Structures are given as structure tokens and as C-alpha cells.
């Protein structure tokens, strides 16, 4: 590749490892920044160079623009890949990178700011001809005004913080009282979390599906989309299972969604990879939600069905290359599913879990991809997101991808903190999931079906015996003499 010689990855964990993999394949030297807490992590091990950054709590190190730019300068990196989370959607960071004479591997700062504000981005989307959910349009801080809007568009409504994300600062209201209360609470939560308490009101879509379009744009005016991902299986507005293509939308709807997503990207002079998130109702009407101006956690499913390495395209676009294909040349082939393995107790309200990864073994196979950034012995703490790994399977069709996922989950061994691996297996095994009847309420509606099953008596026997034979409480200094043991205390 004629582009960069050295790139710095301003992230940690699995996405850092993911970006490093493509850098290695393209013979680009790599640098990662890391906080002391991550000094034994695979990302630090996999990179050609690693630069220590400091901060308390650890997350603040990865948010420290000055330290990260200094690390790029000192190592001679020409460009910075932000991954996702942390600084990836901070326009200020993208601008600071450019101002330092480096290349930001992502969209221009102006596109990040344009899409970063939920209210502004919705206005821009509407101007670009993208369909949007009926709502207040502007931020509202008067509960009575919120009630008036809610009555105009009809209940239920969603009260959503402008700066919110990941479920923070969101409330559903079914009546005037809940609307008043929800406005105040969503605002307070967003104010505390993001320092911006503005809230807007919009129509709450019943049985919504979360379907998003992956777009790629270069600096030469070319914009293409790589089709959709459906991410309707969510807990607390966070995605758990993602797949491509969606089992729900038709070729016509896909085409219309793709065209609108590309129109929005053009409207904000977008470059690099981005995702236009849409909500799709029962009748396949789709509405713009937001645009994520970075690579996404679930990008592997798109890579599996299109054969495109999205990180590679981000690098090429950042280096000034043009996209190598037109829209017609992009095909979706087969089906891919991704599950997010979290350290959490799904059977106890998705309670986050912590602890040391005592034993880790991921499955391998021709239809399996595993993206992770953990090692055995690593402590899963509360400092960062509790995602341990992403497991992705591919199949010629959806049924085969599901079957591969069931097998892969059965072979995934993560012992230490409680994980959601068994829960994910129950989700992808559920008849409603298998038939494609998914929407964002799936986990709530089927919570009873998805409850953990107890061991059969045969399993119980084997498990108790294995545990007893392994546990030191049963290690005796003096062993019972063999003959006496054999006869169980009886004298013959």
C-alpha cells in the first residue's frame, strides 16, 4: 500500500487488536497507546511499539488528546486510528490530530460534529431527504411542552437526551404523568453523564427493529453502502446479537435505505466508514436514528458477507485513495451473525461481573471469527466496558450461520467471571430468533423462555463428582487404605 508507513491506534482491547491485524497485513508499522492497567494486554503485545499513557481513572488516559498526539509525534506515526468509543466521535480530537499535522483515520471533524448532536443530525437528515421519526424537532425543557408534543404525535413517546447514548438519558412514556417525569429524569441523567441535559420527544415505534446501513466514502466524492446489519436483540439499548443481512427487509427496502444513507453521507461531506442507524417498524417503514461516525463493534458481520475489510478501506481513504468499487460491484453473500460475549450475569438483570479470566479457550473453524483482546489471567474490572470478545459465524444461509453459532458458543470456554455465553446460546436457539421474528423487545418478551435451565440428574452427578475430585477440600493428607475403601467400611 502506497499510503502510511506507521499508524497509531488510540484504543485498547479487541478493537485495538482488530485494527492491528489489518495494519500487519498491509505491512504498516503499528503503535498503540496503553494505560498501565493494560500493560500485559494482547494489543500491547501485538503492536510494533507501545507508548504508556497515564491517567486516573484509567479511562481518562484513553481520553487524553494531548498524550495521544504526543505519542504519535514521538514515534513518528503519520496517522491515528481511533477505533470506537473513547475519542472516536470527538470532533475536537479529529481536529487536534489534523492541527498536529497528522491524519485522522475517520471522517472530517465537521462531519463528526454535524452527526454528533442527535437533534442537529436529525434536521440534517431530513434536509438530505432521509425519513425521520415524528417528534419535537427541538430540545424541550418544559414538561408541559413535552406533554403537548406527546399528545400531538401520540403515545407512547420516547424522551431522549440530545447528548445521550448507550441507553443513558432515555425514558419511555405512555401517558402525561410518565412524560413529565421522564423528561426530568432523562435530562438529569444526561446532564450528569455528558454535561448536556437537553432532551427531545419523539414517537416511540412499537415492535421496532434496529437496522443500520454501513457506508464508505472517499475524498473523491464516491459514496457506497455495504448493505445492512440488523441489531434488534438488545438489552438496555445495548446490542447483544447482530447479523447481516437482516432477515426482515426486502431488496427494495434495502435499496431505499442504502440510497438514503449515502445521501446523508454526501450531505455532510463524509469520508471513511460510517453507519446510519435506522429504526424499522412492523410495516417496514424506516426512520433515521443517528449516524455513527466511526467503525462499529458489529462491523465484522458486514465484512463476512461482503468480503470487504472495512479497516483497510478506512486506511486507504485516509491516505487519499479512491474506493475501488461502484455500488453495483458490492454484493452480500451468505449470512453472518455476531454475538457479544460480556462479563455479566444475564440471569440476574444483566448484572456486570468482574473477576480474573482463569481459563479462556475460543473456538476455531472455517466459519468462525473471534475478535477479542483478552488473555488468560487477565482481570476483568469495572474500569472499562465488560465486553470480553465478539464471536462471529458465517453460513451459506441464516440457518447455517445460526447452527454454526450454536456450536461455536458450546465450544467457547471462559471460566472466571460470570459471562453471558450460555444466555447467548439460548437466544440464538430460541424459535422466535430462528424464524427471524426479532425486534428490540425480544429479550424482555421472551425472558421466561430464556431463563437458565437446570442440570439433568445425569449431568448433576458428573458435575458434582468432577467438582469434588478437583477441589482441595477433598485432598486429604491421609488417604483411606484401598481395601477398606473398596469395601466401604464393611468387614469381610
Amino acid at each position: 500500500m502506497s499510503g502510511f508507513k506507521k499508524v497509531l491506534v488510540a484504543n485498547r482491547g479487541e478493537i485495538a487488536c482488530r485494527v492491528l491485524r489489518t495494519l500487519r497485513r498491509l505491512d504498516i508499522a503499528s503503535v498503540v497507546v496503553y494505560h498501565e492497567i493494560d500493560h500485559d494486554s494482547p494489543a500491547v503485545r501485538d503492536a510494533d511499539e507501545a507508548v504508556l499513557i497515564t491517567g486516573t481513572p484509567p479511562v481518562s488516559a484513553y481520553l487524553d488528546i494531548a498524550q495521544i498526539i504526543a505519542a504519535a509525534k514521538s514515534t513518528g506515526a503519520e496517522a491515528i486510528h481511533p477505533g470506537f468509543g473513547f475519542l472516536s466521535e470527538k470532533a475536537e480530537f479529529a481536529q487536534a490530530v489534523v492541527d498536529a499535522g497528522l491524519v485522522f483515520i475517520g471522517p472530517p471533524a465537521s462531519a463528526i460534529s454535524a452527526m454528533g448532536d442527535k437533534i442537529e443530525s436529525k434536521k440534517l437528515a431530513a434536509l438530505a431527504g432521509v425519513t425521520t421519526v415524528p417528534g419535537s424537532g427541538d430540545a424541550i425543557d418544559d414538561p408541559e411542552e413535552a406533554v403537548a408534543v406527546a399528545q400531538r404525535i401520540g403515545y407512547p413517546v420516547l424522551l431522549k437526551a440530545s447528548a445521550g447514548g448507550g441507553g443513558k438519558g432515555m425514558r419511555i412514556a405512555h401517558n402525561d404523568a410518565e412524560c413529565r417525569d421522564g423528561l426530568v429524569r432523562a435530562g438529569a441523567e444526561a446532564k450528569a453523564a455528558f454535561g448536556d441535559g437537553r432532551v427531545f420527544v419523539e414517537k416511540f415505534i412499537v415492535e421496532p427493529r434496529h437496522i443500520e446501513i454501513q457506508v464508505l466514502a472517499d475524498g473523491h466524492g464516491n459514496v457506497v453502502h455495504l448493505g445492512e446489519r440488523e441489531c434488534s436483540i438488545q438489552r438496555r439499548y445495548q446490542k447483544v446479537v447482530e447479523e447481516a443481512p437482516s432477515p426482515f427487509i426486502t431488496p427494495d427496502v434495502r435499496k431505499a435505505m442504502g440510497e438514503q444513507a449515502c445521501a446523508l453521507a454526501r450531505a455532510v461531506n463524509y469520508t471513511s466508514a460510517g453507519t446510519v442507524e435506522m429504526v424499522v417498524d412492523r410495516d417496514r417503514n424506516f426512520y433515521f436514528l443517528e449516524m455513527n461516525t466511526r467503525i462499529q463493534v458489529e462491523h465484522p458481520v458486514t465484512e463476512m458477507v461482503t468480503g470487504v475489510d472495512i479497516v483497510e478501506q478506512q486506511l486507504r481513504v485516509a491516505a487519499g485513495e479512491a474506493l475501488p468499487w461502484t455500488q453495483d460491484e458490492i454484493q452480500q453473500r451468505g449470512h453472518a451473525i455476531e454475538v457479544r460475549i460480556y462479563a455479566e450475569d444475564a440471569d440476574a438483570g444483566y448484572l456486570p461481573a468482574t473477576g480474573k479470566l482463569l481459563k479462556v479457550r475460543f473456538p476455531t473453524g472455517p466459519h468462525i471469527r473471534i475478535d477479542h483482546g483478552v488473555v488468560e489471567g487477565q482481570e476483568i474490572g469495572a474500569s472499562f466496558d465488560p465486553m470480553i470478545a465478539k464471536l462471529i459465524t458465517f453460513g451459506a444461509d441464516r440457518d447455517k450461520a445460526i447452527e454454526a453459532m450454536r456450536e461455536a458458543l458450546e465450544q467457547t470456554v471462559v471460566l472466571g467471571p460470570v459471562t453471558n455465553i450460555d444466555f447467548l446460546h439460548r437466544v440464538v436457539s430460541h424459535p422466535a430468533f430462528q424464524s427471524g421474528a426479532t425486534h428490540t423487545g425480544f429479550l424482555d418478551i421472551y425472558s421466561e423462555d430464556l431463563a437458565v435451565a437446570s442440570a439433568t440428574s445425569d449431568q448433576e452427578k458428573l458435575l458434582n463428582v468432577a467438582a469434588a475430585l478437583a477441589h482441595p477440600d477433598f485432598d486429604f493428607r491421609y488417604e483411606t487404605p484401598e481395601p477398606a475403601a473398596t469395601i466401604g467400611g464393611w468387614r469381610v
Partner: protein
Amino acid sequence: MLRELSINGGKPNEVTLTRRANGARVWLNGKSLEAALSPSGNDWVVTVDGRSVPVSLVVDRDKVLIHAFGRTWRIIVEDPAERAMLGANQSDVAKAPMPGVTVNVMVAAGDTVTAGQTLLIIESMKMQMEIKSSRDGEVAQVDARVGESFTLGAPLVTLAPLEEAEA
């Protein structure tokens, strides 16, 4: 050496065993079983009365974590005698139901609180949660500090023990 083993929080099973040259005799709820646990690569094979199953396992203090039958199992190994000696009044302490960060503390040592009153607000997994008093009483100690993080089960607010007469 009797221990109670419970699988994934289920009912306890009484287990005792006698080791032998090639395995052990295990009594599970009084029933005798011929058993063995043999290494196999980085893993193990457990055999009970002639049936063998491959397992991955690690011991973590009082827990044995097993991957078998395509699932993960958490088995607690408990000494019934030891458990009987525990039993301090736990309801004096409001403990963290999940790891997180303290957002707001509404009470201070010496305050009188009533059952259900919000003591503090914590945030975990991007959700805020109110921690409420389990009973009426007086706050003896507040360990939670705004902005500081805590682990699962950490004491957040401790109430003064109840008077003898009330207890």
C-alpha cells in the same frame, strides 16, 4: 470430610469421597459412585460408573468452575459446619448490588433513616440505581464517596446495630 456442593445456586448435595489408586469412590447424597478425574491435554475427563465426559475446569477458592455439556457451571463447595458459624446481622449494611460508581450520597453518619428511604444513588452499566434503607435506623457509617468506584458487595452505608430489646 463432608462438603455440600451446589450447582449454579441450586439445592446443596452432600458429597464425601475416598481416593484410591486409580480414581475414587464418591458418595453423592449417600449414593456410592465409582469415579475418576483424569487429565486430558489441558483439560480433564470425568468418569462416573463407566461414563466419561470431557470437561474444562478451574478451582477458584470455594468455587469450581466447569465447562461441560456445552455450558458453564459454577459449583460452590461449602463446609456445612463453617456455614453454621456465620450469621452476623447482614441487614445492617447496604452493600453494592453491582460494581459501579457513587453518583450521590443522601445521608451522613448520625442521620435517622426510615425503611425504603434512598441512601445513595449509584451508577453501573450506564444506569442509575437508588440504594434504599432495608429498615428504620440510624446511619453509623458511610463508606461510599461521590465519584469513587466500588466492587460488587462493597459496603456502602452501614446502619447502627439495633438495640438488644428491638433485635
